[in-house]
């Protein structure tokens, strides 16, 4: 072998106490195939020994739908027409977001043998959890598609393109929190349990089961502006999905008063704004998500040097 000839082209790795976020991003790009492989592995492993396989993924939203439909539409009579479509619009994207975080949180600690023995960019592990949940999302979307065909047959054409930026934003946001939480969980193992509680509260703080307008109205009655609801970053994403797919920002109910006069009430569900208003909100959340993602990577980089000793 010619001395030095191969070393000039070979990658030089410098291992020092800390490395930069940029170096991590470059490395992540280099390992993109592994990310795909890990996503595939996670899905394969999950359904390897089950007879129903991917059917389980669709079973969850279907069952949730049945329960919520019974409780909120039948028992409590919330009056939202085509409730299945309404619920699935919010629930699917919520599932993507929350399940990503929950499964990513244990991704570093759960792959101890790998983290301890092999060198590779560890942030791939939480990101693979997000990827796996993205696949689940697409499978669950089949249920939504079914509901659409059964109840509705149309979407809001001038809003539907917002789905793309909304998906991107939710992925970056989920990625940021996943990377952050997976690192935290190495040092505080009950982050997982705490997160389950947080996710539960967060779910009910997001207008998925109930309409956004109900909260906005309550806020206005108390003299507070309705934009406060958008402080929950997931709200912007959920209402975008609802606006684009559920398509109907209001619905009318007719009731007969005591004097026999028909009363038509217009009930608001979603903000009565144009697509640009929705996009503006998404952009703000997207910006926050990118900042969080960089921050999460920076945090991850700082602490990952000790992962192998902490696990």
């Amino acid at each position, binding site marked *: 072998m010619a001395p030095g000839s191969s*070393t000039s082209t070979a990658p030089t790795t*410098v*291992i020092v106490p800390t490395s930069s976020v940029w170096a991590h991003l470059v490395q992540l790009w280099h390992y993109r195939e592994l990310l795909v492989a890990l996503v595939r592995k996670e899905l394969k492993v999950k359904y*390897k020994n089950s007879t129903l396989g991917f059917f389980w993924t669709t079973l969850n939203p279907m069952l949730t739908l049945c329960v919520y439909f019974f409780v909120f539409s039948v028992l409590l009579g919330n009056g939202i027409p085509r409730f299945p479509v309404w619920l699935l619009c919010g629930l699917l994207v919520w599932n993507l977001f929350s399940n990503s975080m929950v499964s990513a949180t244990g991704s570093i600690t759960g792959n101890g043998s790998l983290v301890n023995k*092999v060198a590779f960019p560890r942030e791939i592990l939480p990101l693979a959890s997000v990827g796996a949940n993205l696949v689940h999302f697409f499978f669950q979307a089949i249920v939504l598609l079914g509901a659409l065909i059964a109840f509705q047959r149309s979407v809001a054409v001038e809003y539907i393109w917002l789905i793309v930026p909304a998906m991107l934003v939710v992925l970056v946001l989920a990625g940021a929190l996943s990377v952050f939480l997976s690192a935290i969980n190495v040092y505080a193992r009950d*982050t997982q349990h705490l997160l389950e509680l947080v996710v539960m509260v967060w779910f009910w703080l997001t207008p998925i089961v109930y309409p956004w307008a109900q909260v906005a109205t309550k806020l206005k009655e108390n003299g507070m502006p309705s934009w406060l609801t958008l402080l929950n970053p997931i709200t912007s994403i959920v209402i975008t999905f609802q606006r684009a797919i559920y398509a109907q920002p209001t619905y009318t109910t007719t009731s007969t008063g005591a004097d026999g006069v028909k009363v038509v009430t217009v009930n608001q569900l979603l903000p009565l704004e144009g697509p640009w208003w929705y996009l503006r909100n998404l952009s703000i959340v997207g910006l926050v998500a990118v900042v969080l993602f960089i921050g999460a990577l920076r945090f991850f980089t700082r602490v990952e040097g000790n992962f192998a*000793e902490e696990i």
Partner: protein
Amino acid sequence: MAAAIEVNGVSKRFRLNHERHRTLKERAIHFGRRTESEPFWALQHIEFQVAEGETVGLLGHNGSGKSTLLKCIGGILQPTLGSIVTRGRVASLLELGAGFHPDLTGRENVYMNAQILGLKSRDIAARFDEIVEFAGLEDFIDEQVKHYSSGMYVRLGFAVATNVDPDILLIDEVLAVGDEAFQRKCLDRIREFQRAGKTLVFVTHSADLMRSICDRAVALDHGRVIASGLPGEAIRAFRMSLVDGRGRPSVETELDLIGEDEVEQAQIDAAALANREVAVVGVELSHPGDGERDYLLPGEALRVRVRYHAAHPIDDVVFVLNLHDTNGQFLFGVNTDSLMGGMKGVDGDGFVDFHLPAVPLLGGKFLVSIGVHSHDQRTIYDHRDGIGEFEVVNPGRAAGLLHIDATVSQATPEPTS
């Protein structure tokens, strides 16, 4: 030539927490109280370089920092101080099959594992058959890995790690596993790596292996480099440190290197000093059952033919034959002085036959070691531990180590009236 690995003043500190607060609850309860933690320096100012194409062995008792150093070089741990520069793709074999998922098939795991080690899937596809063939798992590659035996698991792990074509390979005592045939295969593969000009860093407890494979050895003790140089020198320095420091170590895994009895100690040192003026070229073992079976029966004859090559005429020479069991227990030793009162001088190629008319061993594997030295033992020409081996199979029902002829008779005592 640029060094393939530069370790510049690397120190690694671990915290030994007597009470680890692993959960938020515990952290909340103990909030404000400083957890008792002792800094423990696993590595202290390690400084060495490995040239491209060089094979370096790391030596040290358990807990001396070898594995930590290997993990730092492999990028699994970050050093607390200092820096490490590596040039080329690094593959580390710290644990064979690390990252295999039991629920996936062998095929899926090969892809996963190779990708984790940094290979692209099209490269894996090109090497896939070679990997499977090397592991000898053609028939099982589509089985789930959880149904594999531990040997199959290890074989697949080694096959993947060495087929990712690294420029630098880090190996941590993983070769101790696997059966002998596979170990030999692994060694062949390692030699291939060496011939291809790859850089290897190697942790082993086997002095023989270290001597036969490594160009250089670095001995560590308590996280410091205590010796760096030829394997023999490093082994000696390492042994000195053990004796000087704390007398005999108690760790059993190091038996191979540290040797419990003086005989073995002397032998290991001897090998390091051998000048090869009379080199042992090979050993042939023959017994009455040659041709029909490859093992001995208890009490059978054994002839050990030692082929040698002498670089120049040497008169002052003694050949030594030693037998050990596989645990390193010294069983028998004899030399040409004691057997025939001294032998003629040697020159060029030739052989010496040791005849053992009846080997009184009952069963097991035994190792043959050959030494060649001068009468006063000051000059050691050659020393080969375990150069030959033979097996004795016990066909009968006796138990133990030795074959001793035994019969039994019974006498009924006369009834006393």
